[in-house]
């Protein structure tokens, strides 16, 4: 099965059809959840990075801020991914044909993998290896803001 056939199949499923036929304000409601979730996610990444970079909360143990940030990051990511999946299912073929959508998904996957692996290790060892934590914070910021920037471009194509 080719990617296009798979997308067309998604488009023809009950949920795909229901989403496409729903009132456009239903779509707008998913957009609210998507934007608010993403703002929370980006703010969490920013908060954690500020601590790891030594720009804020330097008197607190890094783990403190990292733990709080990670909880909020998880909530934001869940809201953004869930609403994003529904938005995508309303027009899989249309979204997939958008170049910036494909870029966004690749950067998103890279960001999630990085956050769950190297960043996790580096942020836990921030007290012993502050330089590694700083590098991880910068990569994390670039990846997640990259997701946001490419996402914003989808609508301009």
């Amino acid at each position, binding site marked *: 099965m080719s990617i296009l056939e798979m997308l067309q199949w998604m488009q023809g499923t009950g949920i795909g059809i229901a989403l496409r036929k729903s009132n456009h304000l239903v779509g707008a409601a998913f957009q609210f959840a998507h934007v608010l979730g993403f*703002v*929370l996610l*980006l703010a969490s990444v*920013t908060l954690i990075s500020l601590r790891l970079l030594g720009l804020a909360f330097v008197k607190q143990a890094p783990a*403190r801020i990292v733990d*709080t940030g990670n909880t909020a990051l998880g909530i934001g990511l869940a809201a953004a991914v869930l609403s994003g999946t529904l938005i995508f299912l309303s027009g899989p073929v249309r979204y997939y044909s958008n170049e910036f959508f494909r870029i966004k998904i690749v950067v998103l996957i890279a960001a999630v993998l990085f956050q769950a692996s190297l960043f996790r290790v580096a942020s836990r060892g921030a007290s012993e290896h502050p330089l590694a934590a700083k590098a991880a914070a910068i990569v994390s910021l670039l990846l997640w803001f990259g997701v946001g920037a490419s996402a*914003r471009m989808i609508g301009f194509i």
Partner: protein
Amino acid sequence: MSILHDFAQLLYDSDFGTALRESQYAFPVVEGAHLLGLAFSVGLLAFADLRLAGVLLRDEPVLHVLGQLRPFILGGFAITFATGVMLFWAMSIKLLPNPIFPVKLIFILLAGVNFLWFEFGVARGAAEWSDCPVPPVRARVAGWTSLVLWSAVVISGRLIPYLG
């Protein structure tokens, strides 16, 4: 109404407004900066609000959390506000008749009033309860109010293209 309309027309027809509106790259970049600036402004403010509400970072003194985040929140608002002005400059005539646009401005105004009430009222006695995991009712109300109002600002902003 007509003065407002004339002013919007003046902005719309200006060189800067026209150039930004018709630029293939500058306009999306300004839109992008307006969105990403929210991470610092509204996003970091949400952490400050949730500390005030007694939800997050309860072990850290309220004044410390607010003080540490303040420069980044203010910097974020500077970006969001400056890019917002630029977007209005470029799109003024199209934004003016949009029913949700004034609603967004009203929410921003209310959030500003809430901020002033907090800054010059509630925060005055903050030294007494700064260390409390859960601040007094007035502070919690200010925190939740800010969170709700800024969320409403973001939501009404996202609605602009739907109702334009």
